[in-house]
């Protein structure tokens, strides 16, 4: 494939709209979550400055938040994305201490959505389909994800600490997480294993190898489904262990850029006499931003989702796979982790432990195997073209 064929390939308009609204939603959540990190840093910025100077970063923060809402709902989306980029750049130029690599990833993804796509936005939850056209947004998001993994491998390879087999992983489990005060469930479970030098070295090499392989796997039709599972699992485990927060959700959203759009390859069978099923049928067009699911209303029968390959799942397992097909599930996960950063306890339990527990239970549902269905397959999983 030549660069022209790659960047000039037509893309379903739902894809660019979904990525744009997804990035806008994550920007909004990230800027609300930034309160915990930015408030003490901006307090330092304000020391010895005039009132107007001290207030300026807060003004830019507010402007960025309003612009991110515009990107999410599709109000002048390219202009909103431009304003969001300018506000974040201005904020970082004014008060460099608020810089974080998470916001740099966010900035790049917002900039990508500002580069291309219709100026007049149709939200991904609108029913209009449109025709496939050349769009840079999905291709650049794909390239950005690959660059993030590859540059991460290079940075690790250049770092003396990462070259010492297992040293970073051992430090994380024995010092970094215990001293951070985060009371999650993952580190106590991993610490006895990963404080062993051989296992720590294996885990460290495994992370670097996976990051090195993921870009090639994501661009390969044959390995894409495996890359989705391996990459998403890696990001969810890292989130529940080390809480990189916004970075996790931006990366998970980026994986949708490799998925098909508008293929209606999955079939969701619902029973039209059951109120809960009818509610789901009404909500589906607002959740299925990428247009992956074909609705099949029947007079009776269970909630059932059949994959393009003919694997059928029912009940909770079907709902889990439906959520995995829909980008708003990343926003829901992000909201669960990022909203109200000052809340450290839920019902008397550490918030980190509650998040870990909920994610483990929800993740476990996804492991329920599907059964071979007699329904005709409609498409292909992982066809990103």
């Amino acid at each position, binding site marked *: 494939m030549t*660069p*022209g064929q*790659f*960047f*000039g390939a037509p893309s379903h308009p739902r894809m660019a709209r979904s990525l744009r609204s997804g990035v806008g939603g994550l920007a909004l959540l990230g800027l609300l979550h930034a309160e915990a990190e930015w408030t*003490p*840093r901006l*307090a*330092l910025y304000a*020391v*010895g*400055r005039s009132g107007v100077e001290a207030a300026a970063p807060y003004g830019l923060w507010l402007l960025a938040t309003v612009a991110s809402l515009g990107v999410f709902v599709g109000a002048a989306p390219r202009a909103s994305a431009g304003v969001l980029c300018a506000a974040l750049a201005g904020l970082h130029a004014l008060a460099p*201490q608020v*810089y*974080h*690599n998470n916001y*740099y*990833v966010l900035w790049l993804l917002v900039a*990508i959505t500002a*580069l*291309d796509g219709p100026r007049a936005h149709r939200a991904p939850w609108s029913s209009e389909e449109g025709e496939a*056209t*050349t*769009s*840079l947004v999905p*291709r*650049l998001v794909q*390239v*950005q994800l690959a*660059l*993030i*993994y590859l*540059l*991460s491998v*290079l*940075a*690790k390879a*250049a*770092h*003396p*600490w*990462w070259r010492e087999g297992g040293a*970073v992983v051992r430090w*994380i489990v024995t010092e*970094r997480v215990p001293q951070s005060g985060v009371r999650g469930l993952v580190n106590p479970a991993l610490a006895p294993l990963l404080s062993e030098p051989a296992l720590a070295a294996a885990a460290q090499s495994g992370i670097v190898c996976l990051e090195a392989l993921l870009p090639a796997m994501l661009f390969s039709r044959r390995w894409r489904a495996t890359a989705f599972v391996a990459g998403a699992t890696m990001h969810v485990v890292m989130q529940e262990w*080390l809480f*990189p927060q916004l970075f996790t959700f931006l990366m998970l959203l980026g994986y949708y850029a490799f998925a098909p759009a508008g293929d209606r390859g999955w079939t969701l069978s619902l029973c039209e006499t059951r109120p809960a099923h009818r509610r789901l049928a009404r909500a589906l067009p607002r959740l299925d931003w990428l247009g992956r699911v074909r609705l099949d209303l029947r007079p009776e029968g269970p909630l059932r989702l059949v994959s393009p390959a003919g694997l059928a799942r029912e009940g909770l397992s079907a709902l889990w796979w439906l959520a995995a097909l829909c980008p708003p599930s990343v926003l829901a996960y992000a909201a669960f982790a990022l909203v109200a950063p000052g809340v450290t306890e839920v019902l008397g339990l550490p918030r980190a432990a509650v998040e870990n527990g909920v994610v483990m239970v929800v993740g476990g549902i996804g492991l329920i195997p599907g059964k071979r269905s007699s329904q005709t397959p409609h498409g292909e999983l992982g066809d990103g073209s």
Partner: protein
Amino acid sequence: MRPATATALGALWIAAQLVIPAARAHPSSPYPASGRFSWTMFAGPLVGRCEHALRVSLSDARPAPMPLRGSAMRTVLDARAPGEFSQAVWLFAPYADSDAEVAASLDALLRRWARTLPPGATLVSELRCASPGWPRFTRRLQVRR
């Protein structure tokens, strides 16, 4: 968008992504890659392992007014041992690439804070850094109000 425009923009995007980390690389340093604009946790230089000695005196021997306990400024001023100081560095010099960069950010902060002290106050700050992999770094700052 025309395919040719898309290709040109795509190529520019990739080039920019490679130029930014390359421009921030320090091939002769013990940590060649910068943590800023990098995509991995715990891969920037290890800096800020410093002892910080701070004295603030007023002309009439009264105790100097300190920021409220629990405030960000007080956290920085109270961070004296290397462990505490390296954590406080994240408040005023995140992703610093060297101890000299940490010292420059601390100097700027202390100079601004000194402006809030009563006239005649003297601030003396001594920083001694021994971050792993780096040569020892020291600096002394004296500010008179």
